[in-house]
């Protein structure tokens, strides 16, 4: 999940790395979990690899990442690329991926090109730098802040 948060909000990444729990009642969280649980139910298997990453693989061998909507596509794509990168560089299996927005009936194929691999490696360094900080990056107002589960946590001051 780290990659996705790195792209969306560095402060949220820091919270996540410290296991600062989100509000489970948040409607966006409930919806996201529901969409993820209810789609491709029959066709995917969940794998946990080296105890580090947990990913879903479809029957046809593609790695699956589900997004409840097509907003914040790039972060989801980076997350998927990280899985592909990990499989390729650490485990030694080459895979392709698919990014699915079930509510919009859209799917997009994702491949690990050299350019994408460099992007993943940059992000890994970035994530490391953030999560080793003593305190989180300061709150910064972003367009999607209001739908974030940490919104009240950040802004109640």
């Amino acid at each position, binding site marked *: 999940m780290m990659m996705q948060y790195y792209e969306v909000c560095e402060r949220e990444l820091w919270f996540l790395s*410290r*296991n*600062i*729990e989100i*509000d*489970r*009642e948040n409607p966006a969280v409930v919806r996201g979990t529901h969409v993820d649980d209810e789609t491709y139910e029959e066709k995917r298997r969940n794998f946990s690899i080296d105890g580090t990453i947990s990913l879903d693989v479809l029957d046809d061998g593609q790695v699956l990442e589900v997004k409840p909507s097509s907003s914040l596509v790039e972060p989801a794509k980076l997350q998927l690329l990280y899985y592909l990168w990990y499989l390729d560089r650490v485990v030694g299996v080459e895979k392709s991926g698919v990014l699915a927005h079930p509510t919009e009936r859209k799917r997009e194929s994702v491949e690990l090109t050299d350019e994408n691999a460099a992007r993943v490696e940059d992000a890994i360094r970035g994530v490391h730098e953030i999560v080793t900080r*003593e*305190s*989180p990056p300061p709150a910064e107002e972003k367009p999607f802040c209001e739908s974030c589960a940490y*919104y*009240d*946590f*950040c*802004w*109640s*001051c």
Partner: protein
Amino acid sequence: MDRNYHVFSDGRLERNNDTVRLVTEDGEKKYLPVENAEALFVHGQVDYNTRLMSFLDDHGVAMHVFGWGDYYSGSIMPKRGQTSGQTLVEQVRAYDDPERRLGLARKFVAGSIHNMRTNVKYYDNRGHDFASIVETLEDCRGNLDEADDVDEAMGVEATARRAYYSIFDAILPEGFVFGGRQYNPPNNEVNSLISFGNSLVYANVVSAIRATALDPAVSYLHEPGERRYSLALDIAELFKPLLTDRLIFRLVNRGQLSTDEFETELNSCLLTESGRKTFSKAFEETLEETVEHPNLKRKVSYQYLLRLEAYKLKKHLLTGENYEPFERWW
């Protein structure tokens, strides 16, 4: 998700299919929709079984029990609340660092003095002359910066509260004589109302803390273990003037509660069942009142302010970002 249900009748609380049912002693059945409940407040004598407990637990609903004396008896909290070892460690670290603990203790006192002062100023503008009390509270707030340890901060709080309580007799109508804080058990009507109101604030703070991973027993102004949920005492301090005291003035001055609503025995004076009903109903209405939040840019209920306070404290403990106590801004 934030409704409180108050049960005053004696009888039996039980699970009935997918809801909670109260069967009163004369056989009447009442249903409490549990889906959107935050907590049940039990004021009567009720029986219940483990099946009810598991059901409340599944729905994350707390049960706060009110008895005799100072009213609050205890809470049965759902196990499903959030837990986080990390949060507890940071909470204890802050407690164990004298500078940080004192810093937080001062914040709770500062906020609480500010909120007392708001009430005094309100009545100062409405036909009373409380200028000297306002001044005393401001002095207290100034002295707070010189408090070198938590005991001294507590002392400043006590001085401020004494000055604050001294206005009560002037505000309240004839028949209600306060004469200073007495509790366990309260000795007169005003003390009884303060005890009852504060115990409702306290129980609501316990519920609010439960929504975070904070441990309700690790506190800063009060000594941990002083009462079981001493962190709830710290936070409740900030909200008593807003939630309890203003409500007492309103109910008594408008004649919605009279001295008939109390039972006096030996050295105690306690609200009758109908008095408790009137007070609890008005208290719940107060919790539902809303105010525009300057940072969240939306309206939030008074009850949600309690939750936000727990979030703010948790954020301070886990990130080191500044904690500013709730100070009434409107």
